[in-house]
């Protein structure tokens, strides 16, 4: 092992603090951008340009009453938001967000762990996140929550297959499941250029995975009030928000890593390139939320099973053929 445990602990602590800050400010930035797109102003009262708004929101939520509805399954109700947040945060561990840098003479790798099944680990974490939602929906003893939870599982079984299949072709081209290796494999050519269709399929599924518009079915507020988190208040509610925005950041980071050459780029340091590419994706998520209507969940299921899945399989065959033809 090249790094000692102390360094790892420090890195984890710093990363988590950064992630929490990024989530808070992603919410702020999203609100500002959406407001601008909708000819509104957005939060601008707390601090300069409203920059302290996220802090104010969190403080408010900490001091809100923590309600547990009658008839709720108390343990599950308590653990569901925690589960959602834990999987959301932990998934980021395998993402390489920069090159190795020198810090006070110590070589620091800008990732927590580059395990050889990094991609599978990402899948595992994102699939586990659904449990947080389903359990929250079920344990609340609220019909709207229940419907939201059920929708979430319906959504999961629709997008997960094409998502998995679309990434096989990337693994095929990179020859590794390690995200670090996948980044290195794109040193000359980004995979978005080589496999645009894989990216499109991946990205559509990724939006569904984050429960964001136009696939925000489990919490469709005009249909299910707030879906699975109808009954949640205070920081527990904030944990769901944390999980959702972490998911946005993670899938965006994954897209950057797998298709856009990761942290690689000319002139600027690696981590800055990573942040720039990531911001682009977050802006895109916001843009879609402001633009698109919402699909119905049977339509999403049809899209996943009848359009994306065959397309992903076809894409895989073509890519495999090309790789084989180029002498692999």
């Amino acid at each position, binding site marked *: 092992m090249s790094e000692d445990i102390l360094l790892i602990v420090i890195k984890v602590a710093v990363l988590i603090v950064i992630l929490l800050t990024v989530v808070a400010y992603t919410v702020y930035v999203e609100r500002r951008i959406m407001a601008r797109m909708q000819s509104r102003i957005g939060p601008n009262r707390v601090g300069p340009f409203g920059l302290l708004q996220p802090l104010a929101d969190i403080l408010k939520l900490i001091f809100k009453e923590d309600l547990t509805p009658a008839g709720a399954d108390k343990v599950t109700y308590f653990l569901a938001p925690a589960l959602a947040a834990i999987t959301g945060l932990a998934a980021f561990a395998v993402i390489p967000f920069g090159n190795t840098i020198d810090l006070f003479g110590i070589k620091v790798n800008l990732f927590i762990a580059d*395990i050889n099944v990094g991609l599978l680990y990402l899948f595992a974490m994102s699939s586990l996140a659904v449990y947080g939602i389903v359990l929250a929906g079920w344990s609340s003893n609220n019909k709207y929550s229940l419907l939201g939870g059920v929708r979430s599982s319906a959504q999961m079984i629709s997008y997960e*297959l094409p998502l998995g299949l679309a990434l096989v072709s990337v*693994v095929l081209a990179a020859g590794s499941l390690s995200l670090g290796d996948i980044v290195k494999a794109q040193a000359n050519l980004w995979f978005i250029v080589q496999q645009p269709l894989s990216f499109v399929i991946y990205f559509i599924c990724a939006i569904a995975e984050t429960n964001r518009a136009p696939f925000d079915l489990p919490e469709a507020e005009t249909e299910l009030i707030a879906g699975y988190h109808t009954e949640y208040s205070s*920081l527990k509610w904030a944990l769901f928000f944390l999980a959702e925005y972490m998911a946005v950041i993670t899938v965006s980071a994954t897209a950057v890593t797998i298709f856009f050459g990761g942290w690689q780029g000319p002139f600027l340091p690696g981590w800055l390139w990573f942040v720039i590419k990531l911001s682009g994706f977050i802006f895109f998520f916001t843009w879609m939320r402001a633009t698109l209507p919402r699909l119905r969940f049977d339509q999403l299921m049809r899209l996943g099973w009848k359009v994306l899945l065959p397309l992903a399989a076809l894409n895989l065959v073509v890519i495999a053929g090309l790789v084989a033809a180029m002498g692999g």
Partner: protein
Amino acid sequence: MLSDYLPILIMLVAASAIGIGGAVISWVAGPKQPSANKAMAYESGMIPVGTARIRFPVKFYLVAMLFIIFDVEIVFFYPWAVVYKQLHLFGFVEMLVFIGVFAVGYIYIWKKGALDWK
């Protein structure tokens, strides 16, 4: 090899601290004035009729079953993809056969109408 996973473990512990800690903080810091009305499940401002704990008819049950089968099949692609470049043409043909089997199953369930759930 296994020590590669130590950072992951540390990350999980830290994330758990945030997740569970967050839930505990609000429980400690927030006011507590429970009342029967507050504890009532929210149903658009009306008193809920019946319970949410019913045997919920999950219409996409069959699709969920199929999902598990297909998901397992897709997982099989991964090890193959990792070593694909060493397998050369054999790997390609082998994959074609596997995708063929996959496609037959897929077309079968489509034709059977398992995907047109209602």
